[in-house]
């Protein structure tokens, strides 16, 4: 556990150090930061928004803000990733508020696994089902569930990102998981879990 915390701190320091190098004019630092951070931010935005094009825009905007704030960045005050996740979360919230909510019934059903000969197609169907279920959650629950269970962040860090208390994060993730279970309850057989269990 201690080792894990030290590793996370070292990672955070490495990103802050890269940002300082970028601010000092090192062009290689920008590429290293982009390679490290873009997949995480894009993945999160896509899970929350359910739309790749919008997720790309949000990711680009968040990193643009990072490049601009680099000369003023003060190491030790905040983790670069926490700051970025917060920017992405706020950008996603803004976009979600502008949308008209879509009930789960209107979300496309996952592809019928009976037509899929390959495991890869079934995996795709499962991910589509998960995304459809995520899309049906209220915005804050979806953000909390994605940050906790897919991005793998700890509750205190999620609390900073979502600007709520740790207890609120626990409540959001618990309610989110219950809602996901309910949304996926009737799709277990369609997603092939029963086949694996029995076969």
């Amino acid at each position, binding site marked *: 556990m201690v080792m894990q915390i030290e590793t996370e701190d070292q990672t955070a320091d490495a990103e802050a150090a890269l940002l300082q190098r970028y601010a000092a004019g090192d062009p290689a630092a920008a590429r290293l930061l982009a390679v490290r951070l873009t*997949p995480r931010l894009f993945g999160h935005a896509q899970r929350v928004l359910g739309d790749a094009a919008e997720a790309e825009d949000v990711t680009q905007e968040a990193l643009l803000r990072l490049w601009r704030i680099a000369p003023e960045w003060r190491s030790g005050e905040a983790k670069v990733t926490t700051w970025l996740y917060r920017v992405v979360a706020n950008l996603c919230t803004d976009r979600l508020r502008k949308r008209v909510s879509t009930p789960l019934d209107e979300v496309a059903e996952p592809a019928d696994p009976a037509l899929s000969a390959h495991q890869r197609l079934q995996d795709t169907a499962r991910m589509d089902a*998960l995304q459809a279920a995520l899309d049906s959650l209220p915005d804050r629950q979806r953000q909390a569930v994605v940050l906790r269970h897919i991005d793998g962040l700890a509750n205190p860090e999620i609390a900073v990102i979502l600007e709520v208390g740790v207890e609120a994060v626990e409540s959001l993730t618990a309610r989110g998981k219950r809602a996901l279970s309910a949304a996926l309850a009737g799709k277990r057989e369609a997603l092939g879990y029963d086949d694996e269990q029995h076969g």
Partner: protein
Amino acid sequence: MMMNNMDSDNGLEALFEQARAHPPRPSEALMARIMADATAAQAQPLGFVDRLRALLHKLGGGPAVSGLITASCLGFWLGVAPPDGLPDLAGQLLVQQSDTAYEATDLAGFGWDQDEG
């Protein structure tokens, strides 16, 4: 058909695990746009306002700088127009520069008159 709690937790965890194992990948076009932004932001020289903002940030932000300005103004005002009971050092210095008659001034209390001979 409803799954019981244990089944749903296991099923959900399996889905989460699969999602973690296969994250959505950003396109090459996105990476190119991000690098173009980074290069442009890095190459852009800081304007006067940006440099001023950076300086204010290094001094501790708006509240700290406003406190610094207030303290400076107060200090200046106390020097120019001291309240009763405080020596009028600014006035005495100005008088001393224009008029060499500095006897019986408060400056003598610091021994500066002795150093001057």
